[in-house]
């Protein structure tokens, strides 16, 4: 059977320090295959995918040696738009992919560029929006979508091209459980229907492992395992290669609601918090982003905010952090003072809130990782603390690097390390585990555990079941929170347009 993609003896040198991102990589992708590409953060998965579709060295800088053939033609001999007809890439960060202003326009962008007939464009748009659960959002502006919704739009934009080779770079990160499962199943099905193949780089193995026909594990730029996906079920194998567990159970986990540990004495209280963006008038079809949310954040505990993409998790976190003002309702410290006012003007332990969002890069103010980390320390705190935190989050080897030169995962670890170094009273993390392999997630969980043990209050918004189930779950339970999610027409969400939990539904 002719190979769709044939990579032989591929080496790639990139980055300011000229490090070898890929070393002697060989990979053959045949029709019908779903290949799961796994490995530690920074092992070269994204670089391999970028090389496979010719982005390196055409657009991203890098020196490539070796041979890459797509459908028997050397990739260098193909124009980029010819590659687009054969291979489609969904980027790691959806913000880097969306090019038009509406969801529908984004799905139509590729077929329009390829000059497909109008009827065919309309058919494809309808089809991919249905597959990705975006039919109800088709006229929405992409800039008003949540991060997870943007991810789905990005994938829809690739699906509409109907390439025979799908290249997906961490497609499941930030997606909610049901969306991740259905989208990956759909891509695998679509590829099978067209006699194509899928190459998917992913840390959350559980969503791909059932569809994968091969597991390829990379380490430091080389392929160290190429074989049956069954190997991922072996604990020792995973530990050796820094992989996450392919399946986990979240016994008392949050399902489309807000969970928190029952608080004896809450540090922070949100009461009847409502939120709508300016210019948006809540309607039955598009309700308010948050409606009457009550939440207690307890010290020495984790509060988990979970829910489908677009349900208002990030908005709630920003309101708790004082970055957004609620349309109505209050967020107060236990002494009754306003959280936003106190957080904005005070410094030091016992008063502050630290927030690490989706884009941590803008938090940095120093030209070196070590100096950046030190800048987060409260006054009169020994510098040893930075080393300690850096070791726990595995960023000590990056001390001499510039914060702006770090990868997404590294900059997220640095931002979380900085926030921990500041010793805030409340630490708020939005999807902290995105881009984390098994080893680094263990580091993160250990650091968060220590933070909570020292009396810190943790608030986490995440859809990563693997991460959530490894938080100290013994105390997690559903609490008396009202949460209104935005409308979803995804079949998996059924007609559930408003999710409310007026009363405690379970207690651990």
């Amino acid at each position: 059977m002719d190979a769709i993609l044939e990579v032989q003896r591929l080496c790639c040198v990139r980055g300011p320090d000229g490090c070898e991102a890929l070393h002697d990589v060989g990979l053959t992708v045949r029709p019908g295959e779903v290949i799961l590409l796994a490995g530690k953060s920074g092992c070269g998965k994204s670089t391999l995918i970028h090389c496979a579709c010719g982005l390196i060295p055409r657009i991203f800088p890098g020196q490539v040696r070796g041979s890459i053939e797509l459908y028997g033609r050397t990739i260098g001999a193909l124009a980029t738009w010819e590659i687009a007809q054969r291979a489609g890439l969904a980027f790691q960060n959806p913000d880097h992919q969306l090019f038009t202003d509406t969801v529908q326009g984004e799905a139509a962008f590729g077929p329009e560029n390829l000059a497909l007939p109008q009827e065919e464009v309309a058919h494809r748009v309808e089809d991919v929006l249905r597959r990705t659960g975006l039919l109800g959002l088709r006229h929405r502006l992409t800039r008003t979508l949540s991060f997870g919704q943007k991810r789905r739009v990005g994938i829809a934009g690739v699906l509409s091209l109907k390439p025979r080779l799908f290249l997906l770079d961490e497609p499941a990160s930030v997606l909610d459980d049901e969306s991740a499962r259905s989208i990956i199943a759909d891509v695998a099905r679509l590829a099978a229907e067209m006699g194509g193949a899928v190459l998917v780089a992913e840390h959350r193995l559980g969503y791909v492992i059932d569809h994968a026909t091969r597991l390829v594990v990379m380490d430091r730029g080389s392929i160290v395992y190429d074989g049956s996906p069954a190997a991922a079920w072996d604990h020792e194998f995973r530990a050796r290669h820094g992989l996450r567990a392919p399946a986990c159970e979240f016994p008392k986990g949050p399902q489309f609601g807000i969970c928190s540990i029952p608080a004896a004495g809450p540090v922070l209280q949100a009461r009847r918090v409502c939120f709508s963006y300016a210019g948006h008038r809540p309607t039955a079809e598009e309700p308010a982003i948050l409606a009457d949310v009550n939440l207690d954040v307890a010290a020495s505990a984790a509060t988990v905010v979970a829910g489908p993409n677009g349900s208002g998790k990030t908005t709630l976190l920003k309101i708790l952090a004082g970055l957004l003002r609620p349309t109505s309702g209050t967020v107060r410290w236990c002494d009754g003072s306003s959280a936003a006012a106190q957080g904005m003007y005070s410094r030091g332990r016992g008063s502050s809130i630290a927030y690490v969002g989706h884009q941590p890069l803008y938090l940095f103010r120093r030209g070196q990782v070590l100096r950046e980390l030190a800048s987060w320390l409260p006054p009169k705190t020994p510098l040893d603390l930075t080393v300690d935190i850096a070791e726990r989050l595995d960023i000590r080897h990056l001390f001499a690097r510039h914060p702006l030169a770090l990868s997404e995962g590294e900059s997220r670890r640095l931002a979380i390390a900085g926030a921990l170094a500041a010793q805030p009273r409340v630490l708020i993390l939005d999807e902290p585990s995105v881009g984390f392999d098994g080893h680094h997630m263990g580091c993160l969980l250990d650091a968060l555990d220590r933070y909570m043990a020292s009396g810190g209050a943790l608030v986490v918004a995440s859809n990563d079941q693997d991460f959530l189930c490894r938080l100290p779950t013994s105390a997690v339970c559903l609490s008396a929170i009202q949460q209104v999610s935005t409308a979803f027409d995804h079949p998996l969400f059924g007609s559930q347009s408003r999710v409310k939990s007026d009363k405690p539904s379970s207690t651990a």
Partner: protein
Amino acid sequence: MPVHHDCDVGKAAGGLDPRTKLVMVLCVYTVACAADDSWRLALALTVAAFWFWRVSPVHPGAPVDAATWLIIGSGSLLCMEFCPEWPAAVAESVARVCIILLGGGAFSRSTGTGELAAALQQIGCPRSLVLVLLACQVMVGCVRQEINQAWEAGRARTACLGTPRSPGLVAAAARWAAVSFCARLFRRADAMAAAAELRGFSRPGRRTSLKRPRLRLLDWCAATACCTAAALLLWTH
């Protein structure tokens, strides 16, 4: 005199074909550039301001409504007519800039990237120009998003660490925000270019479009009315 968005001329103006809206913008710009009479300038300012406001998102309870814009336009008209020479000249220059910004803003707020590209192709713009204009429009949105994110992260850092105490630290923070902003924007522009290329952006030949813009009777009427009004205003002068 609040005018409701559901049944007014503003909504109709927002739904016009992009080519009609281009003609309207050109008419407003022509009056803004050619008129040296405060009455005409004030009229153009009022029209541009009204158009901009009507295609903007609904802000429930917003203090500025259609009546306010009309009062602002009329007030500026009277002020310019009766005030001494040099303030009138300054006011006229400001009015011209405002007309250009408001007209452009109204056009971009009411026109999506897809329909703009399709409309430009229909009037015979070369593909390269269409793509450049499309990329420019996209980058404006990116810049706005990045500014929001930088601003939000700055506030998050301040909330955690407190306000910098010396002007030097404030300046350093601003400098770093600018550096991060540029670094991120360049990185994002690179990635977006890559993503667009991998979706056939640079394929030679014409593009098709999901929605083919059509000129309706309303479009012809609006374009004719605008051209006639602009011609009359300038000709009577």
